[in-house]
């Protein structure tokens, strides 16, 4: 697939977006009644389900208990039907473990864990359909789920991937772009303060371009946060309407 033209001379990407445009984001909160918090989020064709349990007391080995704050436990998995070719192992492989770790780090930075000492918060994320930007979709879905669970956070955590093609940063890569040999960068941001919760890049990039790339990623994340904010407000309206009656 090396011959794909990721950015046309007219400035269009493969799917008709311009360089800075995000994919369409749709989300719903409170999709499950059993869990403490849950959310479903679509970003283009990448679809993720996030479920949050807790805070509750430590389960399993008590030795991991922290005395000043809560432990965040994350699990990332991909549905076997999420990719074009059926996936053998939904979770537990190296990639998923790494992703779980990244999610954990992200949310440890965002959730106000010191409010719940000696307890545990479980975040389970499942990718139902994968079309690029899995990490960022998971973070966004999990944010909504945590909010749904009523766990206090410093800010929304919004994540977005950006790639670098022909000296132009492309926001929110889809699968075709990710696999087309673009050096991409994933960034999780607390938009109000502009703090970076996680920054991940494992491709080669010239140092001079890093700044522009991060800049573009932050703008994209702020765009995502606006959408998430809308979703949360709308959800609250619906809920308050229901409870109000």
């Amino acid at each position, binding site marked *: 697939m090396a011959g794909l033209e990721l950015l046309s*001379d007219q400035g*269009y990407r493969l*799917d*008709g977006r311009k360089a800075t445009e995000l*994919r*369409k984001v749709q989300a719903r909160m409170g999709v499950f009644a059993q869990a403490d918090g849950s959310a479903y989020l679509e970003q283009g*064709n990448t679809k993720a389900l996030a479920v949050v349990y807790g805070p509750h007391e430590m389960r399993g080995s008590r030795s991991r208990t922290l005395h000043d704050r809560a432990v965040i436990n994350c699990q990332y998995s991909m549905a076997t039907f999420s990719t*074009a070719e059926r996936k053998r192992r939904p979770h537990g492989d190296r990639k998923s473990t790494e992703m779980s770790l990244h999610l954990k780090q992200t949310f440890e930075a965002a959730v106000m864990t010191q409010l719940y000492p000696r307890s545990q918060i479980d975040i389970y994320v499942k990718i139902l359909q994968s079309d690029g930007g899995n990490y960022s979709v998971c973070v966004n879905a999990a944010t909504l789920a945590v909010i749904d669970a009523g766990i206090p956070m410093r800010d929304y955590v919004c994540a977005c991937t950006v790639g670098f093609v022909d000296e132009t940063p492309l926001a929110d890569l889809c699968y075709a772009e990710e696999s087309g040999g673009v050096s991409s960068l994933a960034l999780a941001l607390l938009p109000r303060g502009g703090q970076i919760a996680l920054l991940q890049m494992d491709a080669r990039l010239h140092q001079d371009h890093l700044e522009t790339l991060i800049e573009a990623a932050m703008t994209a994340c702020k765009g995502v946060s606006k959408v998430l904010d809308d979703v949360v407000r709308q959800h609250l309206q619906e809920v308050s309407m229901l409870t109000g009656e």
Partner: protein
Amino acid sequence: MIKTERILHLKSSRGRKVRVVREHYLRERVPCYSGVCQADCENDGKVLSGDLTHYMVPDAGVVVDYLEILEFRELQGIVFTQTACQAVQHSKGRRQYNRLRNLLKDPRHDCVLFANEFQEYSYCPREKGESQEKWQTRSECVYNAAVWYYNHLAGMMDIVMITEDQEAVAQYSSLNSGVYVISVQDYFQNFWPDLQAAHELYTSISQSLQEKESEGKEREYGEHLPAEVLEAGIKSGRYFQGTLNVSKHRAQTEAYIMMESFSNKSTDMTSILVHGEKNRNRAVHGDVVVAELLPKSEWRGKVTALMEGQGEVKSGEDKLLPTGCIVGIQQRNWRDYVVTFPLRDGTQSQSRNSQRILAVPWDHRIPKIRISTQQADTLQDHRVVVRIDSWESTSLYPNGHSVRVLGRAGELETEVQTILIENCIHVPVFSDAQLREMPVISPEKPWEVDPVEVTKRRDLRQSHLVFSIDPKGCEDVDDTLSVRSLAGGDLVELGVHIADVTHFVTEGSLTDLEARTRATTYYLADRRYDMLPAVLSADLCSLLGGVDRYAMSVLWELNTHTLAVNKVWYGRTVIRSSFQLQYELAQALLNGEQTEVPELAQLGSEERSVKLAQLIQALEMLTRVARHLRAQRDRGGALELEGVEVRAQLDEERNITALVPRQPLEVHETVAECMIYANHWVAHKIQKTFPHQSLLRRHPPPRQEFFSQLVETAQAKGFTINTETNKALADSLDRAVDPEDPLVNRLLRMMTTQAMSQALYFSTGAQSPDPFYHYGLALDKYTHFTSPIRRYADIVVHRLLTAAIATETGAGAGKAPASNKELEEIAHHINSRNRAAKRAQKLSTELFQCLYFKDRDAQKDPCCVANAIIYTVRDDGVLAFVPEYGVKAPVYIKNREGQVLVAAQDGSCEWQSGSVRRYADRITTTSGCGTSTFRLFDHITVRISVQSFRCHASRLNLELISNMPCHSTKPQEQHSQGRVQLVQEVVRLAEEAYQQAQEEARRRSKFCKEEREFCQTKTPNLYTLLEEVRELALRDLEPAPQVCATTA
């Protein structure tokens, strides 16, 4: 953010059929790039002009098959749809798609891309079960786009959609949507009845398309392997990738694959032999191919015989070359080819009904091309430009179509055009739009310097005595010099002032684009194709005497005694050249001879002598400085490649035409030295400011193996040539002088020049600093700065220098005008164009040599008998050089019947049956009458005749008539004369020849006019040209003894 998500795409990847879903976003506002847009589209960049009668929208099928026609610059207002572009990408591959992209980017073509698939209302989704190709070629997609376009422009512009699909024409023309749907043929007949070339191209393409459908099934060649297999094979070292280079002399059987990258160090092969057509497997000269090695038992040796048909391989085991067969082709490098249609005879008449013809390309290395045409009879003796379309494994020959007719074979104009096309030189007349960018000048309102501009520049008009030294009749004076004393004589200020072309040619303008495409001025034997329009090259940028001109200057302050550089100043200036001298005149002034300077003719005698004294003083000072610079370069870089390198360099510096090597007066060297100095310092400056983004020129040291022939040849004469460093080489060349035969040294120097690698432009970011070195000039950094009128590289360097100066003064942002990547691309382009220019020049010289001998009877005319010298020995003949005409050609000692040449007592040779033996330095023939030996550097007498071919370029044929030199040649006598006399003789001869040439040129132009008016024959015109060639060839001989004398 307005976004809608719509569509699912089906796609298979990596062999397995996989269903992939892709998003597709549509939007309401897609820029239309039209000049008459009413809806405020964001049309940045290229916009279709609004004053046309209609816009044309070709459908996908038309764009795929007939893109060539759409490339005509006359066609305006073309709207390419995205659907069509993608169809090209899918069905024709990247090369064709890039061509389309360049077309869209090029501001000289009036065409735009409309992204119809991203427009909400013009998008038409793929239906279930419909294949990708079908969907793309479905005319509905493009039709919808055309309708939207029409409505978007509110009906202000008629839209014509052209298609080859007759159903679509029938279906849509009845709908009343404002869009006309017609077929391609109708379109060209109705809208462009005058564009004959397009009509012809259309018929030729459509015919070849029809033929393609009725292809046979028989397999002639092996199938090519798929790209993934090739890639994997190359990585594992099983296959080898390289460029196919077909042998010129044995095009049928021999080809070599030149490996560009030494990816696997274990095998130190540089080339692979490909023997025979089957092994070559449809690859054409120049393609990037992938080959597999054959088992060692099938390896073959190189054929060293001169004649075809004698290719028995006699060489031993050690001479076997790695031999392989081609398994795949990475990239086709097909260009336009010139072909000649074969004569109609019995064998062709069978295929008359299919109208297919095997045309023979002009270039030997290209296989015959099958063309379908109805004009075969009328175009029998014509040269025609064709393009190759495809080469299926079922076909013995590639299929092609004709593009245009050049003219009758053998005519001068046709042959010159052939040379241009075969070297991919495209030099159309400058268009109106380009000329409109030029300042208007007329006799009533001559161009003047702008006073505002003058304030920004340093004014040297009053303070400096500026003069130029050029050959006679030079129009484009791009360099001038100045020299003066400063600070009471302690300092000398040397100045080199170069025409400021970049002031007139702004980056990105149409003129700039055209100049970049041409990259250089092309000099052919009888004409030249300018890089810049004549307004600039001959007037505004030409630093003529007595008028104000903008210049780019480099001024050095040198210490008068030590001549060490004190200070250097670079910058833009205004100058007025006081003297426009010629070389001969300048030399005469230096020698203290009484001559008339035309600029001083009107002045009073007193004033005249004052001015004259000033000028002479300046010239003397200049000569002193130049001598010092030269000596400095000799000491520091240790180089004395005189005769070869410096003369070649002189040529490069200031050549007017290569047919006229200048007489080596000292003033030549003086000017050249100043130019080299300026180039060197500018190279320093730009490289210092932009270490990674400057354009320099390097001359890599030659590969030692290329010298082997030179060393062996020299050994035959008892000379040893040391090739370790440039200094050693130069010294040993100086020593290799045969006092009895000055030609030996000249031949050796010629062979040295051949062994040299070519100097190249490059971007500094792409190389490590070591190879910046210029071998020939022995300078660590070098660039081209002094001839911006005829070289694009100099324009780039001028821009770099301007940016560097701006950085220094703090005015600019300190950013390089072009990135390393862009520069590297430019450098690559210029290098390839320079090679093409050189080749074209060489070919045209050969053409003229052939034309010269063509009309002469080889048996009677004394001109056809000439003295020659043997410089290489082959299996069945020798290679000889004819100094009188500068011709190099093979001389056969053994002919096709197996007879050999044996010399009689008096030296005359005749054919007898016998045998030939070849040794390292000689070749002997034995027959019943005795033995004769031909040694290296033997003087022989040859008869020159022309061997003409119908389809290829004619060739000069040398026939050995005696193994003694013929004694009547003029140059031989001259060699014995004293040096001073010789110089005078040479100058006189050159003058005469030049005047004669001038006169003839004048006569010629008159003839041309008459010819146009009265349709006269071309013969007298041609004759004068050829006479001129002869004169020039005569003069070519003179420098040799002189060079020897000066170095001795």
